[in-house]
């Protein structure tokens, strides 16, 4: 019990000491706790970190392996594409080469062929020369034609002149003005005068000598008569009268108009007309024909037989009295058997006598 009382006396102190010890113990415990926590945490940290490191390494390994795999695939594909490109490029280059050579050849041969261009230009020059000569020839031909026409016109004019001045032709006694005895040969006008035929002056159709004023063409009215030269004098006749007088047509009499040989010609004409109308040319031929000789009747040609003896004359039956023998003709030569077959096996068509 003493202990217990001592204890109770010292209870506070003990409690204090106990508290103190407890605090110390607590303190130390806490200290150790903390230390152990630190150790534990360090260790746990280390373990966790190394685990994580390990995991990281694993993950990295997986990732690298995966990436390697993927990259290799990609690389292989790229390699394939690259090889394909190389091949394509190779073929393209060769194709370009072919195309280049072909195009050069084609252009040089067909499009811009130098030699054919040269030939074309020489051909063109020749064609030009041809055209030039043709045109020149045509020009010359036209000029010549024109000259010819002019010449013809001149000659026609001279002949026209000659027709009107026919009285200037020279005669045997009096040489005309175009023919002189001092010249070697008569002039050309003289020759023309000699060779022209005198024609009656024809009335021009526009001039109506008959007096008619209706429907005259206006233009012809003003230009018919030549103008008067000097002062006009005195009463004048109407222009139609003057025109009629000036251009009066020739009215020859019937005796002048008939031909000198009219009667002979008429005779000839009548003869010809009659010849046409004739049937035949025999002059004394009559229409009856007496050429045939008289044909006797058949009945009169036979000699006269008395009617009683006529019975013996049987015209259709054989007269056996006249025969030498009774028998018929004997066939000495046997017939050709082929001829029996005639018209049985083969029928040769005769042109006229066919059986069909």
């Amino acid at each position: 019990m003493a202990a217990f009382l001592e204890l109770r006396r010292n209870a506070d102190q003990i409690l204090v000491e106990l508290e103190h010890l407890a605090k110390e113990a607590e303190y130390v415990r806490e200290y150790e706790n903390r230390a152990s926590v630190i150790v534990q945490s360090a260790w746990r940290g280390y373990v966790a970190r190394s685990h994580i490191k390990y995991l990281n390494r694993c993950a990295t390994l997986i990732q690298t392996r995966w990436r390697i795999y993927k990259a290799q695939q990609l690389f292989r594909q790229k390699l394939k594409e690259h090889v394909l490109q190389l091949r394509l490029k190779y073929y393209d280059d060769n194709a370009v080469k072919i195309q280049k050579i072909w195009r050069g050849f084609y252009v040089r041969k067909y499009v811009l062929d130098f030699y054919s261009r040269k030939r074309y230009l020489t051909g063109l020059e020749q064609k030009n020369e041809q055209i030039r000569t043709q045109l020149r020839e045509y020009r010359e031909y036209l000029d010549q034609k024109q000259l010819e026409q002019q010449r013809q016109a001149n000659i026609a004019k001279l002949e026209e002149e000659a027709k009107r001045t026919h009285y200037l032709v020279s005669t045997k006694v009096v040489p005309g003005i175009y023919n002189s005895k001092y010249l070697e040969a008569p002039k050309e006008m003289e020759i023309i005068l000699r060779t022209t035929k005198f024609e009656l002056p024809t009335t021009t159709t526009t001039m109506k000598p008959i007096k008619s004023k209706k429907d005259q063409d206006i233009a012809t009215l003003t230009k018919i008569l030549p103008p008067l030269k000097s002062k006009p004098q005195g009463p004048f006749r109407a222009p139609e009268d003057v025109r009629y007088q000036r251009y009066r047509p020739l009215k020859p009499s019937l005796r002048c108009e008939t031909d000198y040989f009219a009667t002979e010609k008429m005779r000839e004409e009548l003869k010809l007309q009659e010849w046409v109308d004739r049937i035949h040319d025999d002059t004394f031929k009559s229409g009856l024909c007496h050429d045939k000789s008289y044909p006797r009747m058949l009945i009169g040609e036979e000699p006269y037989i008395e009617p009683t003896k006529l019975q013996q004359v049987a015209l259709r039956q054989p007269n056996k009295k006249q025969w030498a023998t009774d028998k018929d003709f004997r066939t000495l030569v046997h017939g050709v058997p082929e001829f029996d077959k005639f018209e049985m096996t083969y029928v040769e068509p005769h042109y006229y006598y066919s059986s069909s």
Partner: protein
Amino acid sequence: MSQRHTLQVFEQYQKARLTFVQSVADLATRPQNIETLQNAGVMALLRPLLLDVVPSVQQTAALALGRLANYSDHLAESVVRGDILPQLVYSLAEQNRFYKKAAAFVLRAVAKHSPQLAQSVIDCGALDALVVCLEEFDPSVKEAATWALGYIARHNAELSQHVVDAGSVPLLVLCLQEPEIALKRVAASALSDIAKHSPELAQTVVDAGAIAHLAQMILNPDAQLKRQIFSALSQIAKHSVDLAEMVVEAEIFPAAFACLNDSDEYVKKNCATLIREIVKHTPELAQMIVNAGGVAAVVDYVATTRGNVRLPGIMMLGYTAAHTESLAMAVIVSKGINQLSIALNEETEDHILAATAWALGQIGRHTPEHAKAVAVANVLPKLLQLYMRTDLSEDLQTKSKKALKNILQKCVYLPVLEPLLHEASPNILKHVVAQFSKVLPHDPKARRLFVTSGGLKKIQEIKTEEGSPLAEYINTINSCFPEEVVKYYSPGYADELLERVDHHGNRA
């Protein structure tokens, strides 16, 4: 007796009317009388005579009116104002052929002065009456009606359209086939006047089958007819490629080349115009004409004619050469350049010179060979001269400048370029120097020639701004030569040397 007396009065009156009208018609043929006639009031007097009983008075009155209206447009206007036209148109349908001729003459005389007068002629309904006249038998009536229609259609496209709408084109083509030459002439000229305004009108003319008939008459000996035919064909061909091809298909070549040598100037001119209109459209047509030998014919034509008449030929050569370089070579081979350069030297009128310069430019612009051929004909100095002269028209200056530029840009033949160095103005000089700078770096002989002919010296004397293309060209040229040579030829080198002599003397 009194009956005869009264009839005599009437007869005298008729005679008086007839003489009056005939003398007016005669006086109207001379221009100096017409003023007096107008002042005397002839229009008012002639008008009632148109309605006269006697046919010859009517006809002569119409003829007199026509001659008066023909003279001036005042008189024509007074004819229109006097309401004479409807009467004429009405009687066109009724009367005999002499009257129809005279009435058609009046209509033609009125319509020829201006589009307004032609419109007033149409407004009176003249077109139908004239088309009816075209169906007559008498060729002179047809000729008068055709002439009137042609004059109406001449002014503008609208009037031509009216004429076509009246159904005149097939009848005109029928008139072409008539044997009378005068009628053919007038029909061809009327068709030409109709076709010239627009492609549709030309197509109408072609659809009526005009081309075949026109083509048949090309070698007719009458010169006036040929003029009109070629004019008609060229008016048809000028509008489009199809029409030109149709004209060519009528096989007028090479017969048409014969007409280039005709004695009549206008036939030649119209023929050349036709060829020009055909060649203008496409290279194929130009090729066809060249293959038929057309270029030679045209070059001969240019050689033998002068002045305005050769203008279509020159233009034809220019159009041909413009298409492709082989055609330009064909022109060169046919000796076209000689003729063109002669023309350039001979001609004085601006538009012809402009056309010649243009044609030469077209020939020379394709390749160096072409440029050389053009330049060798001594054309460039003349072109330069034309460009430099300020008293000439703008058009000529621009054309010669363009031609010069075109030729110079391809010309590498140096002996020809040298004279230009000395004379040219700065903007032309640029091109000349550019050409030198292209050739000199590669050709040693040319370099030597360049130096000896004084070209290098001239180059040094040119003043330029830094950085301009001209300076660059000059540098390129200078770099072809050693420095001493360049220095030797630079201006003021002699003075520089003398100065150095002085300094040397001073020092010593």
